[in-house]
């Protein structure tokens, strides 16, 4: 499908920095973008009725130049970007009632991914290891039950949420804070491709060519919370983007589920604050599904969540001791040395053997952790 002229015209309208409300007023006056562009160039019609700043008018006029329009058309064709406006039937129903619903959405991928129950998952980019594994696990379980995960494609929790959803074989949806032609965040280019390949969707309200500016992201977060039937907070500091998403979700009347974190870590301070303020506390995907009354409606919930693994009889004495010690939680090399009375040489060798068997994992900071079976 090659993008048509009308889509390019809508892309033009989205490129001027108009607020969603302004665009919707213009649309209400004249639903044909071809009229709007000539009105704009000649300062008449709808453009004179809606009060707009002169700077926006200038930008829109500049962007209406044939060369600019051709560039946009090319970017859209090249990246397979399409447009859905609030007037379209395809427009996501979940966003329609929002007072600041985006009037024009740029999309890549499959709009049908939004059909069915959805959950938005958010958290910080700089997340703890425990937070990341929990995110992956919960997202995967929800995905197996047919629930689609919405997130922001950022590094950390966002990426883990998308990954988990892909693994659970439901389509996943990313909402970006920049034009869809931008390679941002670059680290997640591979993930982005897999999302599209697996029938997922990538959405943005920003026109192709728009850079990922800092202020886009808090604003974008209203779409993330808006697209989800509920919001799941995995790991949030008190002053973070995730907390703005929570604010949007509350304004939109969504349920907010909060995963508990390490009570001493600033990484989960926001989580605990939310729990104190009355957010829904949860620890497993089943908790969420139960509260959302998804259990009976959805596909069979994955039965393959393994319990605690049987102890492997082939482990040596020292390996067993080490595993027992690690059952108490992650520990540093020095701590293990002292607790077990091993020499450094012996501990190194034992750790290697357990790492080779895939039972123990080394974390940055010379910290070792037992790998929980759910991580496989």
């Amino acid at each position, binding site marked *: 499908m090659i993008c048509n002229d009308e889509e390019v015209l809508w892309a033009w309208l989205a490129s001027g920095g108009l607020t969603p409300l302004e665009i919707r007023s213009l649309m209400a006056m004249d639903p044909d973008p071809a009229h709007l562009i000539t009105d704009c160039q000649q300062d008449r019609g709808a453009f004179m009725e809606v009060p707009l700043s002169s700077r926006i008018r200038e930008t829109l006029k500049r962007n209406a130049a044939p060369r600019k329009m051709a560039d946009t058309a090319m970017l859209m064709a090249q990246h397979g970007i399409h447009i859905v406006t609030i007037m379209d039937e395809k427009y996501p129903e979940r966003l329609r009632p929002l007072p600041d619903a985006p009037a024009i959405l740029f999309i890549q991928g499959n709009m049908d991914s939004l059909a069915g129950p959805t959950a938005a998952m958010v958290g910080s980019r*700089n997340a703890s290891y425990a937070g990341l594994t929990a995110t992956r696990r919960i997202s995967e379980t929800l995905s197996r039950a047919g629930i689609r995960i919405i997130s922001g494609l950022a590094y950390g929790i966002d990426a883990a949420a998308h990954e988990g959803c892909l693994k659970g074989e439901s389509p996943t949806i990313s909402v970006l804070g920049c034009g869809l032609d931008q390679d941002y*965040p670059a680290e997640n280019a591979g993930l982005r491709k897999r999302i599209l390949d697996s029938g997922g969707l990538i959405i943005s309200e920003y026109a192709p060519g728009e850079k990922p500016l800092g202020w886009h992201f808090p604003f974008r977060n209203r779409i993330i919370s808006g697209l989800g039937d509920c919001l799941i907070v995995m790991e949030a500091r008190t002053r973070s983007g995730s907390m703005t998403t929570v604010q949007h979700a509350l304004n939109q009347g969504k349920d907010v589920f909060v995963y508990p974190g390490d009570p001493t870590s600033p990484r989960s301070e926001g989580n605990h604050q939310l729990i104190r303020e009355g957010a829904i506390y949860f620890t497993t995907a089943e908790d969420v599904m139960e509260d959302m009354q998804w259990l009976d409606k959805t596909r069979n919930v994955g039965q393959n969540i393994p319990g605690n693994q049987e102890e492997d009889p082939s482990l040596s004495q020292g390996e067993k001791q080490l595993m027992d010690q690690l059952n108490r939680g992650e520990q540093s090399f*020095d701590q293990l040395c002292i607790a077990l009375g091993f020499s450094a040489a012996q501990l190194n060798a034992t750790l290697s053997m357990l790492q080779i068997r895939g039972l123990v994992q080394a974390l940055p*900071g*010379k910290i070792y952790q037992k790998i929980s079976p759910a991580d496989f």
Partner: protein
Amino acid sequence: MIENMAAIRTFGLSGVAGFPVQVEVFSTGGLPGLEVIGLPDASVRESRERVNAAILNSGRKMPPRRMTINLAPADTRKEGPSFDLPIAIGILAANGELLPRTGLNIDRIVFFGELGLDGRLQPVNGALSIVISASEQGLTEVILPADNAREVSCIQGMKIYPARSLTEVIDHLEGKAMISPQEQQDYADLQLQTPVLMDLSQVRGQQGARRALEVAAAGGHNMLMIGAPGSGKTMMARCLPGILPPLSFAESLETTRIHSIAGQLAPGSGLMIQRPFRAPHHSASVASLIGGGTNARPGEVSLAHNGVLFLDELPEFSRSALESLRQPLEDGVVTVSRIRNQARYQSSFMLIAGMNPCPCGYFGSRQRDCRCSPTEIRRYLDQVSGPLLDRIDLQIEVDSVPVTEISEAPAAESSASVAKRVRAARKIQQERYRGTSIHCNARLDNASIDEFCPMSTETKAILHMAVDKMHLSMRAYHRIIKVARTIADMSGNRNIGPADIAEAVQYRELDQKYWRK
């Protein structure tokens, strides 16, 4: 001998090597003056004024004659003030102001030293190289500044006369007051006085890093430590010279020569008995690391010869500085070429590097949260190039949990007992590599690994599983075998066992966590 003429022996320096120089003085009638020829540099040309004043202040007359001083060979550049003394003696001898005592053959004596205006003798750089070269030329008598005497006192078969002033030299030559020769020192006696810089018993906790340091010392492996600021990386590195085997006499000579030439020896100090520990700041330039300057001076890599080069904050060093280390790490020698000079300096050192895991330093720390973005961390780690990392066998992480949090930290072992084990492991290696160019396990190349590192099928299987499961590169494969060889040597095993491999795998932990793409 031609009348009005004198020839005095001395030595010039080119790199660490000394070359013989003949100071020829020709005195003739005509307008009084003093001309120095034979490619002298500014400091040599200025010696005219120093010599003039020193002679007058020593109670001798400066003959009002025209004098030509030639530094032969005339086609080699001479630098430094060490020619002052031979020039002064030459002038006095050519004009009959100095009458050597009977039986004294002034031709067979080597002179060098800088003169003060008052006639005092000042120490010069490179005394050790000069004396060694003199000894190689079959010369046995040297008159030199007293402050340089200790530096050269270990050289066998030399008569060293330390002099404090020009007057003392003249009196000695004329037989009025003899200088007593410097007592020869035995290198073994000297070594007993080795001062302790930093002892491992002062390092608390850090069991893993301590063990890695011992392995590094035992096999001569380079090591990279990564860890949060204040986790003890620098302290660990400073302990290394104390656990390495003591400097042999030959090594000490090599290292002292380089330090002597660079002017890094304190006046009056003797041979270096402690392995050097060099820790250049991360703003260091290529020239300061490798050597350079107009006169091709030795750089930090050569000053660390037979010792330890510690580079803290590795990624903060300029890319070019880090890349320049590759060649000396490989060859153990650098050739510094400058317009005026070219010199080859030995530079066989152990590289110990320290770095933070990320720009803020707290990535992975349980004490403080890291504030760096993944891109920032990636960019920071990428400052250290693959080829350089390839030359670092041990790459370990330093424990981030402070000892204060560990209630029952055991008493730490002292450097002396660790050093004993290191010596034993080194001895095994010396015997194994006898007759080859290899002197320690770190120097094994891929071809010789097969020959010297026999492994059972079971051991090999563990290595292959580790490489596969722990996402190690094939580059890491050979490094692990080398380190396992050292670990086996430390426990006296002929063959590398499964436990040795399993331990060695842990010393590639950064591959798993930080450089894994």
